[in-house]
């Protein structure tokens, strides 16, 4: 019964995703083909003919509301898939919306950061109150990652779109590789906490309900992990991806925090890392409410539905479906960047 239910859900998601992709592709084609002779008129405050100004794209016959509506539907599905596949919304959002919607990658990355930020902010209070996300573990890491994310955001906004798309595609393919091979450890063994983690008091104790007992934890290899968070922060800011895909392996496999603590702290950590990068995008004007709000609401509603479906789904099948989706989106981004698949 449960298997049949999950098969129906997967079938539904595949059909919905196919319909949305087709709809977006048709609308995009229409946008490119439509009325090239129509002169672009500047909006009331704009002046497309001002010195240094860039002329606007030709007018499209696609009504404006198609785009936020399509975004809402696509991000709703992405929200479901993100929960079922155990990934953050941002990592699916940026390559898929960047690859298949007409928005410039600058605005997609700005929206991606805010989508990841909102998800992290929403999850943060519950995770902190239940003592699954650890403030003592998160704060030193967040300082490094958020400073690096500012640098990443500035680099990302300065690079050319084809360079960004190529690097984004390569990163997504790397994430696919990590997702496919990475092992996780529920309770890693930490032989001896390192000096830095001891002096910062990075340790804790939480109730493991599945075992019915309290679990004490501590961490090691903190300096090496902090160095890695510089790279993670730069990538998060540069691509607007969120960084749960990298945070969890470092916290869990390298530092030795229990899996639940790693996942929860990683989610909370995004609320700080993405904040710094989001401000850079916001201050540069790379945030369009017409893209951000439907995406944010879509992905949050999808996540709520995803949590409900999670109990009745086959996680392994969904995980491979998400990997397939990311592989496709990563290839699309890479080939778009290399100008092979425009």
């Amino acid at each position: 019964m449960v298997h049949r239910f999950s098969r129906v859900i997967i079938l539904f998601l595949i059909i919905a995703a196919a319909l949305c992709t087709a709809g977006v592709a048709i609308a995009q084609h229409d946008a490119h083909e439509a009325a090239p002779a129509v002169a672009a008129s500047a909006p009331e405050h704009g002046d497309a003919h001002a010195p240094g100004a860039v002329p606007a794209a030709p007018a499209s016959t696609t009504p404006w509301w198609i785009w936020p509506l399509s975004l809402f539907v696509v991000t709703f599905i992405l929200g479901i898939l993100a929960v079922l596949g155990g990934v953050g919304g941002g990592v699916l959002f940026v390559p898929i919306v960047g690859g298949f919607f007409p928005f410039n990658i600058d605005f997609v990355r700005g929206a991606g950061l805010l989508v990841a930020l909102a998800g992290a902010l929403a999850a943060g209070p519950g995770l902190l109150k239940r003592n699954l996300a650890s403030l003592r573990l998160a704060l030193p890491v967040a300082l490094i990652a958020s400073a690096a994310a500012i640098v990443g955001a500035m680099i990302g906004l300065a690079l050319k779109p084809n360079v960004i798309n190529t690097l984004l595609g390569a990163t997504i393919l790397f994430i696919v590789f990590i997702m496919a091979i990475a092992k996780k450890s529920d309770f890693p063994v930490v032989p001896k906490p390192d000096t830095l983690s001891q002096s910062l008091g990075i340790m804790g104790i939480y109730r493991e309900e599945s075992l019915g007992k309290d679990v004490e934890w501590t961490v090691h290899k903190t300096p090496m992990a902090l160095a890695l968070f510089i790279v993670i922060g730069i990538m998060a800011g540069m691509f607007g991806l969120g960084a749960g895909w990298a945070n969890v392996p470092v916290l869990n496999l390298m530092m030795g925090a229990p899996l639940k603590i790693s996942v929860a702290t990683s989610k909370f950590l995004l609320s700080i890392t993405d904040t710094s990068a989001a401000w850079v995008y916001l201050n540069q004007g790379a945030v369009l409410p017409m893209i951000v709000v439907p995406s944010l609401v879509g992905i949050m509603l999808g996540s709520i539905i995803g949590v409900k479906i999670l109990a009745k789904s086959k996680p392994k099948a969904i995980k491979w479906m998400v990997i397939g989706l990311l592989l496709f989106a990563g290839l699309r981004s890479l080939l778009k960047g290399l100008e092979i698949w425009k």
Partner: protein
Amino acid sequence: MANEKTKASEEQMAYAGVLNIGMWSGLALLIVTFFVYISGVLPTFVKINELPKYWTMRVHDFNAALHAPTGWGWAPLIGNGDYLNFVGIAILSGLTILCYLVILPILVRKKDTAYVVIAIAEVLVLSLAASGLLKVGGH
């Protein structure tokens, strides 16, 4: 059952409390202001039906073509439906700074010097990002 040992620390609970209220307030405001925006009740900086002509541009070109504000230049424009949405976005983006400021006195009281320094440094980093002082060159 959670016992004393497994309970979250005082600063962690304080952080969670502020985050919870701020998150839902910001999100609710963002959704309300978006409906105000698309309903056309307020004027917009960029006409909604002309937006698709501009969102394909790089952000530097978008700003140049529309003379769109950067930094905090959006704040005086919140009378426009599109920039009104930035209030909710700024609340969500600024919430973390507020959370750090709330836990700072607790850390000071506990004489947790290392984390006081970390929290102050984080507030400075996030404030620098939020200040609009960091400029990204065009290309």
